[in-house]
């Protein structure tokens, strides 16, 4: 076990929690079986155990050891995925969780829940339950489509049609339809190969198919969760027993227990992470690397990129010359994605139209800005939830979570999520998970919709208003306010201050290529504000006359770092040098517990073409074929990180706070923030 622990501790710090984790509690990973650390979000602290507990995963009760234990172990020596067969009567969770996915050969031992499986068919075993639902759902889809056809067009016999079924009169006000060809749904066909069916089936089957694919993943995830819970339960049980000293055979069992344990662990993790991967032929180190939860995808990892590309809906052809430091960030050839996604419009049936629309708008840049993107996403999810109906034999909570997960991954393909969106998704998922099981489907849907409305209203719209109220007190008559880019809150603030008849002047600093400041300028001017417009090159000059700097933010991290539109750090640094106070306006829902020291490890790369092309200057367009030049890399960063030293005050919906207090908000208001 020690050999395994060493590398893991190195990799562990990838998930950093700063400030709020009691340092005494070691991460549970260090002494648990590798299975636990499948690629998954960082585990909740509830799972951490006191470090003195023994490796407790499988301690068979005495009764079992005598009756069943021996056969289990003998089987373990064969290359068979053996379940962690210690059915612990007090933990029913474990029974369902562990035995179903892995399978066992002894039906009597497994309490009759797990079916027989051959060792080679681990895949089948995993997907067994889905197969069932697949069959049933496709059958259902079939029958429903047939029914629909039959219901809407009585006597839809295609052969009869030519014999004069055209009901349309010579001069009808409304013409009626005649079914000319129907997708035939012969029940007899269903037994013969599915290949022909896929063609024959109408839209209903088409919808059902991708759905199945996706939900199966969700099912697997759910199983994984259950397993983990079972493990925890087992550990607790195991931890309890040795302390009582009631299991004397524990030490003696050790040498028998271990091999089976290992094998089991390997098989479980292999099956969970990559079901199609053979477990045996992979070196353990590599495997463990896979199990480590990745905070986000690293795009310089060839293997993972390939895999992600296979899953991807959006065509992702990687841009070729990327800047060395930023290879871990996704960068695709812009311009090919939108037409490709658009032409697939009707094929993507599993994505709700409103989500699809939002994805397109992200991709084409029609919606930008943290709040706007977040609201658009939430509204799309709201629509999707409204139209959602639980498929038969599925639980709403799980299926909907999986669906939302699908939508989110689609949106990520369109454009990486902002931190605010991540928080909103976290909120929505926790709301779904917390739904009481007693609720009916319509009630649950209504609850979720009103939750989303409440989130938008309270956390975004109301928060903006409160921030404006707070910040406007900091504007005095005669001030010269500088802002950079276009932040929706800052815009509201400036307009509000103008309406409350304060006398001030605004300096709008802008930068290529987005020139968002122009839009802000347009809006301010139309309301009659006194403005100066300049580009970021001139910021050091204009800073002489500025008395306050108001900046928006994409996120504020728990070390006080402000993560915002690229260029913000530069403006902040100049303002700091000139001793101009810097006020960051940021809603509290955008706060994140992450700590970031630079803008390299987490950022977003924009379309490099837009910085190579200068509009209106044809003579400067000699970078046209830059992609072919091996010696040139273009870098179009979207965000940067402003160190907290430069920030005087952060204006949030909780009031004005210094950047050092961000962790407090994150810690104290987390539950209230996201109602988690």
């Amino acid at each position, binding site marked *: 076990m020690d050999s395994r622990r060493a590398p893991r501790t190195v990799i562990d710090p990838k998930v950093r929690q700063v400030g709020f984790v009691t340092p005494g509690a070691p991460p549970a990973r260090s002494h648990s079986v590798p299975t636990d650390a499948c690629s998954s979000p960082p585990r909740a602290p509830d799972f951490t155990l006191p470090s003195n507990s023994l490796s407790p995963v499988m301690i068979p009760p005495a009764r079992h050891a005598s009756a069943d234990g021996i056969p289990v172990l003998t089987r373990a020596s064969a290359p068979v995925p053996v379940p962690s067969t210690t059915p612990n009567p007090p933990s029913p969770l474990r029974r369902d969780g562990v035995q179903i996915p892995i399978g066992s050969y002894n039906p009597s031992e497994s309490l009759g829940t797990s079916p027989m499986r051959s060792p080679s068919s681990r895949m089948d075993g995993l997907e067994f339950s889905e197969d069932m639902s697949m069959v049933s759902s496709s059958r259902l889809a079939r029958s429903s489509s047939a029914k629909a*056809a039959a219901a809407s*067009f009585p006597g839809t016999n*295609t*052969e009869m*049609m*030519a014999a*004069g079924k*055209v009901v*349309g009169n*010579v001069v*009808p*006000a*409304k*013409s*009626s*339809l*005649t*079914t*000319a*060809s*129907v*997708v*035939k749904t012969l029940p007899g066909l269903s037994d013969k190969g599915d290949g022909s069916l896929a*063609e*024959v089936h*109408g*839209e209903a089957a*088409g919808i059902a198919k991708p759905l199945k694919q996706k939900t199966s993943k969700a099912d697997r995830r759910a199983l994984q969760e259950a397993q983990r819970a079972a493990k925890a339960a087992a550990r607790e049980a195991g931890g309890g027993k040795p302390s009582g000293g009631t299991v004397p055979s524990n030490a003696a069992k050790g040498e028998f227990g271990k091999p089976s344990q290992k094998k089991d662990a390997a098989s479980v993790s292999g099956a969970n992470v990559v079901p199609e991967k053979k477990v045996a032929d992979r070196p353990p180190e590599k495997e463990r690397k896979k199990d480590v939860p990745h905070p986000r995808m690293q795009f310089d990892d060839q293997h993972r990129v390939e895999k992600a590309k296979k899953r991807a809906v959006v065509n992702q052809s990687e841009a070729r010359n990327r800047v060395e430091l930023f290879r871990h960030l996704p960068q695709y050839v812009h311009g090919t994605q939108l*037409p490709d*996604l*658009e*032409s*697939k*419009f*009707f*094929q*993507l*049936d599993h994505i709700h*139209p409103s989500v*699809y*629309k939002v994805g*397109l*708008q992200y991709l*084409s*840049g*029609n*919606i*930008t*800005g943290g*709040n*706007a993107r977040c*609201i*658009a996403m939430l*509204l799309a999810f709201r629509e999707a939830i409204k139209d959602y109906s639980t498929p038969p034999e599925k639980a709403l909570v799980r299926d909907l979570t999986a669906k939302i997960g699908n939508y989110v991954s689609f949106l990520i393909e369109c454009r990486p999520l902002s931190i605010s969106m991540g928080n909103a998704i976290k909120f929505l998922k926790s709301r779904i998970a917390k739904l009481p099981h007693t609720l009916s489907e319509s009630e649950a849907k209504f609850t979720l919709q009103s939750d989303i*409305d409440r989130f938008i*209203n309270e956390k975004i719209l109301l928060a903006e208003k409160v921030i404006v109220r707070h910040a406007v007190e900091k504007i005095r008559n005669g001030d010269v306010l500088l802002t950079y880019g276009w932040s929706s809150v800052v815009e509201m603030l400036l307009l509000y201050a103008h309406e409350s008849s304060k006398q001030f002047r605004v300096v709008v600093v802008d930068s290529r290529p987005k020139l968002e400041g122009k*839009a802000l300028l*347009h*809006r301010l001017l*139309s309301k009659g504000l006194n403005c100066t417009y300049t580009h970021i090159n001139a910021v050091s000059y204009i800073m002489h006359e500025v008395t306050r700097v108001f900046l928006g933010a994409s996120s504020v991290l728990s070390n006080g770092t402000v993560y915002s539109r690229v260029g913000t750090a530069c403006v902040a640094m100049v303002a700091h040098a000139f001793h101009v106070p810097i006020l960051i306006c940021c809603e509290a829902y955008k706060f994140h517990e992450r700590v970031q020291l630079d803008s390299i490890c987490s950022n977003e790369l924009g379309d490099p073409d837009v910085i190579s092309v200068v509009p209106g200057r044809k003579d400067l367009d000699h970078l046209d074929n830059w992609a072919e030049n091996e010696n040139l890399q273009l870098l179009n960063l979207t965000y940067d990180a402003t160190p907290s030293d430069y920030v005087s005050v952060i204006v949030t919906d909780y009031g004005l706070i210094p950047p050092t207090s961000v962790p407090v908000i994150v810690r104290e208001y987390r539950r209230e923030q996201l109602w988690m």
Partner: protein
Amino acid sequence: MDFQVVVLAGGASKNLTPLVSEEIPKALLPVANRPVLSYVLELLESSNLKDLIVVVEGSDAALRVGGWISGAYVDRLHVEVAAVPEDIGTAGALRAVAHHLTASDILVVSGDLVTDVPPGVVAATHRRHGAVVTALLCDTPISGISETGSKDKAKKLGRYNIVGLDPTRQFLLLIASGAEVEKDTRVQKSILGAVGQMEIRADLMDAHMYALKRSVLQEVLDQKDSFHSIRQDVLPYLVRSQLRSEVAKIEEGWNTTITSKTNLIWLSQHREIAPSAFHNGHELDANGSLSAQSTHKCCAYIAGKNKYCARLNSIQAFIDINRDVVGEASHLSGYSFSAQNNVVHPSAELGSKTTVGPQCMLAEGSKLGDKCSVKRSVIGRHCRIGSNVKIVNSVVMNHVTIEDGCLVQGSIICSNVHLQERCVLKDCQVAALWKVPQSWRLKFKLSYLLSGFV
């Protein structure tokens, strides 16, 4: 994706008079020996659109089209055929099937469209902008072959479209079709003022594939009884009124009743930055929300140069499309071409010293005598062609008999025509069932035989 598809298959079109007949409505005209409607249906099928409504003018034509569809697409598509009276126009046709439309957006496709532009792009553009109408525009196809190019130019001049676009080429600002454009076209000052800059193009053709918002479409159809055609009435109306929209209010009203949270929806719209400052900027002019609601968007999707897009709406277009489908746009035809770049059905019989050039198609059961020459032509099923016959740039439909020594050039020979020995036909269209007597020489430019000798 909440789209419904209506295919307007037309009836007996006047423009194609000698070709279409009782037996062959426009939708069933053969293009490379397949009914022209099949191109649209297969395009839709490949886009996973399998529930279609096909509207046909005339109940006889509807019967025939329906019969053909049920034969060819059984088990593949779910097609409903609606018969509407003739001369009702495209708007009228939509009016007639309006009560069958339930989805939030409607895709209206003309049945005579031959293209490889996926309908998804139009639908996606429509959705992305939340537009009221989105039209597919494509480059006007070059009609005629190079030899007759000069003559065609004169003809083309009469019927070009004028399309006004915003600088990003996403919004339609002006559309006027050839018939209305005589000497001057009016451009609305308000639209020009809002957008600042307008690009006017005359080289674009309306491909007659529209994505329309259903509620708006039905509203317009209900209110404006006089509207006859989508292209000439509905689309220009929507484009004209996009800044002082009456339909948008209805639209908003709909939303209010459904969601009761208009402010949320409005908010997401108001934050939306249109890539051109057009719609964005205009909202501001009249102070926010009110004006935002009284505008609607009319979008255009312009097909790329590498896409093929043509409409079979004239006799010249019929020849052109037939030529292109076996020629440059051969991927559309669905046949596999031989090494000589032609398609000769295995059951076709060729006499000795008969040559079939590239870009030709010879359907099943056709027989060619000795020393024939076929160039850039399509020959239908079960034709009997004697010796020493030259067929160039022509379309010969099914069951045609051509006797020895004939020369057919640039012509369309409909089904069951009998050409007797040594006829010479240049640029003619011969309607079905005619018999052309021996040694006739006909040189008609785009006209057809009025008299027949049986």
